[in-house]
């Protein structure tokens, strides 16, 4: 790893200053599970890394039924998964955050890191998309909000300007008859990057027989985690049946535009897009009904 300086900060202001003065090549360090590996391999350069784990707003996970869930950008996966409110109201998020690496990685890797690393295969992002999550971004100019589905712009690229910091992610309060799920396909049973990942959320009518709305997003089938609104548009108002779900899965498959790489071929990913879309929708419906 190239030589660099390290700064541990305690407030957002303290973090923004060096980001905005533009003098240094800065990287934000929370869990470091991607950053340190990339610095070592020379994929990423930095001459200053700012450790934000001691900034209270960045590590808090708070919930109230009016505003919903707020997750600090530096909060590690394990903290999110073990949060009582998340466990009770957002099992679909637990699905995703509990998949990111083994226990050792879970205890470090953060939601902000997963977003800012902007991997097409990121597990957390499709799950956040189907939960209509919004990124809260700070800069000396103030604060702006970006829906998660718009946060990543290309592999490794996001909407963040050099002077901006991802502070937190907000998820709307839980609704009635709402269910969400995320699952991925990997060759082993752990320690792999998704060949394809699929997140879905559905809201059903009181009887649980009709889709009022639905959202579906896929990982690893496009340059960025892929939100597929067509699936929701198709399902809205339709009756819940294996046929409609099959058809929705085919819409997802059609929207997927994967490449072949060392983790899977385009053809395999196309197939898996449909399979996982179907399975994750079924699970989401199951959850919406309880």
């Amino acid at each position: 790893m190239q030589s660099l300086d390290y700064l541990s900060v305690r407030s957002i202001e303290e973090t923004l200053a060096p980001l905005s003065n533009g003098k240094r090549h800065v990287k934000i360090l929370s869990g470091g599970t991607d950053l340190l590996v990339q610095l070592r391999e020379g994929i990423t350069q930095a001459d200053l890394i700012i450790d934000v784990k001691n900034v209270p707003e960045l590590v808090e996970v708070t919930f109230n039924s009016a505003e919903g869930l707020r997750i600090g950008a530096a909060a590690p996966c394990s903290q999110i998964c073990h949060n009582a409110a998340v466990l009770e109201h957002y099992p679909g998020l637990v699905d995703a955050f509990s998949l990111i690496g083994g226990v050792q990685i879970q205890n470090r890797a953060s939601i902000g890191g997963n977003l800012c690393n902007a991997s097409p295969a990121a597990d957390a992002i499709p799950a956040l998309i189907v939960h209509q999550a919004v990124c809260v971004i700070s800069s000396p100019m103030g604060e702006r909000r970006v829906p998660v589905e718009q946060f990543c712009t290309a592999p490794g690229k996001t909407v963040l300007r050099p002077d901006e910091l991802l502070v937190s992610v907000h998820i709307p309060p839980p609704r009635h008859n709402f269910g969400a799920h995320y699952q991925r396909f990997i060759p082993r049973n752990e320690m792999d990057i998704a060949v394809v990942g699929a997140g879905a959320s559905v809201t059903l009518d009181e009887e649980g027989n009709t889709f009022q709305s639905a959202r579906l997003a896929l990982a690893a089938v496009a340059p960025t985690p892929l939100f597929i609104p067509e699936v929701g548009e198709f399902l809205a108002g339709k009756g819940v049946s294996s046929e409609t779900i099959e058809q929705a899965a085919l819409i997802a498959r059609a929207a997927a535009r994967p490449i072949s790489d060392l983790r899977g071929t385009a053809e395999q990913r196309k197939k898996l897009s449909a399979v996982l879309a179907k399975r994750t929708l079924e699970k989401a419906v199951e959850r919406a009904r309880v």
Partner: protein
Amino acid sequence: MMTKKLHVHTVINGEEVEFLCEPRQSLLEVLRDTLGLTGSKEGCNNGNCGACNVILDGSLVNSCLVLAVEVEGRSVVTIEGIAGPEGLHPIQQKFLEHAALQCGFCTPGFIVAAKALLDQNPNPSEEEVRHWLSGNLCRCTGYDKIVRAVLDTAQVMALQSTKR
């Protein structure tokens, strides 16, 4: 080129420790090369094998993915801190009894990981043990005897705690 070293004050295996390190040095590198705690092993240096596992403020981490400067004011437990003054920790004893090691290189990481598991979940199922240990690679044993050793440790420790 070398940047100015930083002074870090931390607690390792219950002892206050101070050291100087470059920001780019990992906790693993400092444990092994600066502090002489070579029980933590480097198997991959990018978080995929678990041989460097340590417990940082109570949670299991790969010390290769922690910068040494990050442990300022925090507490680290390494494999050297698992056995107590009275002797081996039950997990270490069970690893021996079950022949849960062959070459022994991944063993410190597995023992630290298993300790962290049992601290958090004293009565894990086989599935839970296998899931927890999936961040640790062993190439010699096929995991069979390791999983048995961890399950047996849980039983023994449960008995001990009921006795007390």
